[in-house]
């Protein structure tokens, strides 16, 4: 019960209505019909204090129910601040759910190089909406009442939203995968949600990333360093690579002796649209021949990515004019190469073994 004294007929009526908010809308409207007028009349009759004249709104609502032959509310006696299954609440929850799912879809789409289209997002939102209202209908027809109905609704709605969100994510995943992924990528061999994920860096700032310029252009390593820093990696100053000859295809190496370096390397490769990743052996192909202080990951920047923005890199990767799984060095032994699909977020990458 509210401790505030309703000072006007309108407020009193509103509070009475709030205590009946669990009723179906038509029943609520019908039982409240004309009551605000009545309360105003009682005030006009010389009884300005409606609580003194009619009792508390809660008691009034309870009397109305009893006399009208409507069962008392099961769960809320004495706990009026508890959840009320009103239309306002469900509308609010609905909007919130749509918002959250939309956000999730937007995040997924962004991680997949911005390929999701507005139509897909709307389709997901629609699916969630339908799931929600079906749930509501089922619960309302189920004959549960009061607190039980609230709990059942909540549980069912949550389940429905989760299902719809997962379906939506799969749909978006598939849709974006339909756009002819280039052969160098692992889309064909990786099954979303079922493949063995490589150890994704839980903290991809733990190991610093260095960019080494192995391209034929000057000053491009600094630009790439900035891109990686913008994506959230911790970077060290770029350096010149010692690749001879210069390389066309960028790839990532990591220090096997550094905990978490492989995961960070995979994440770098994924962010850049899918590069090959391999362990680096000393001397690595940077000026000093060694890992920089605090760094266990080096991006050897080739002509393919030199001087390009992240957007251009991802566009290029999607266009198929970009092969990422070139294993460098003719004498290199077979290495375990983690290929990260540009389509999938790094979480769903697979480990495949390729020859040199």
């Amino acid at each position, binding site marked *: 019960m509210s401790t505030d004294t309703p000072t006007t007929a309108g407020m009193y009526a509103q509070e009475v209505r709030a205590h009946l908010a669990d009723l179906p809308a038509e029943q609520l409207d*019908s039982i409240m*019909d004309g009551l605000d*007028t009545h309360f105003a009349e009682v005030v006009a009759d010389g009884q300005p204090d409606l609580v003194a004249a009619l009792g508390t709104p809660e008691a009034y609502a309870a009397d*109305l129910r009893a*006399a009208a*032959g409507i069962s008392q509310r099961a769960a809320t006696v004495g706990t009026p601040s508890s959840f009320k299954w009103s239309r306002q609440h469900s509308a609010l929850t609905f909007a919130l759910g749509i918002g959250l799912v939309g956000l999730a879809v937007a995040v997924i789409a962004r991680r997949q190089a911005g390929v999701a289209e507005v139509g897909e997002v709307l389709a997901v939102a629609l699916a969630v909406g339908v799931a929600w209202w079906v749930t509501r209908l089922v619960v309302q027809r189920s004959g549960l009442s009061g607190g039980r109905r609230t709990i059942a609704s909540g549980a069912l709605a949550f389940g429905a939203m989760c299902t719809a969100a997962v379906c939506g994510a799969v749909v978006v995943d598939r849709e974006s995968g339909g756009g002819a992924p280039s052969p160098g990528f692992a889309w064909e061999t990786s099954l979303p949600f079922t493949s063995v994920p490589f150890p994704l860096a839980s903290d991809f700032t733990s190991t610093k990333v260095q960019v080494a310029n192995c391209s034929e252009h000057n000053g491009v390593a600094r630009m790439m360093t900035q891109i990686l820093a913008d994506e959230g990696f911790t970077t060290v100053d770029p350096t010149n690579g010692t690749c001879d000859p210069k390389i066309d295809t960028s790839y990532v190496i990591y220090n096997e002796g550094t905990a978490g370096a492989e995961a960070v390397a995979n994440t770098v490769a994924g962010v850049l649209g899918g590069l090959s990743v391999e362990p680096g052996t000393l001397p690595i192909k940077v000026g000093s021949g060694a890992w920089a202080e605090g760094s266990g990951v080096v991006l050897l920047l080739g002509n393919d990515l030199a001087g390009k923005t992240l957007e251009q890199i991802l566009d290029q990767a999607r266009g198929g004019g970009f092969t990422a799984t070139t294993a460098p060095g003719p004498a290199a032994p077979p290495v375990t190469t983690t290929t990260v699909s540009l389509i999938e977020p790094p979480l769903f990458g697979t480990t495949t073994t390729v020859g040199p």
Partner: protein
Amino acid sequence: VQHVEPQLERTQLLKGILDAVVLAALAAADGYGYDVVRRLRAGGLADIADASVYGTLRRLFGQGLLTSYVVPSDEGPHRKYYGLTASGRDALAAHRGEWTQFADAVGAILSGIAFETKEVRNVD
């Protein structure tokens, strides 16, 4: 000294006769909710609960014992008037008969008259 709460019992008593008195209050003339409250209070049921009357009107209407129609008011919003339907009048007649029998029996018991005769009437 035992503490007695007559209010509570009276509330219980009123609950049992709400349908009858609300129907009766509308038997002579149609009225809106507040009319019915006022008529019942003027008739001696000073403590009848406003909400009980409104709730009863809604329920009797739902049962088809009352008709309702809206009359525009000079002072402001509309008022919902209620009147008895044919089945409302039948129900009122039944209530009257039942109440008379009940009141007679209770009256006789409380006054002691009921126990002056050899046979005690079964008031069930």
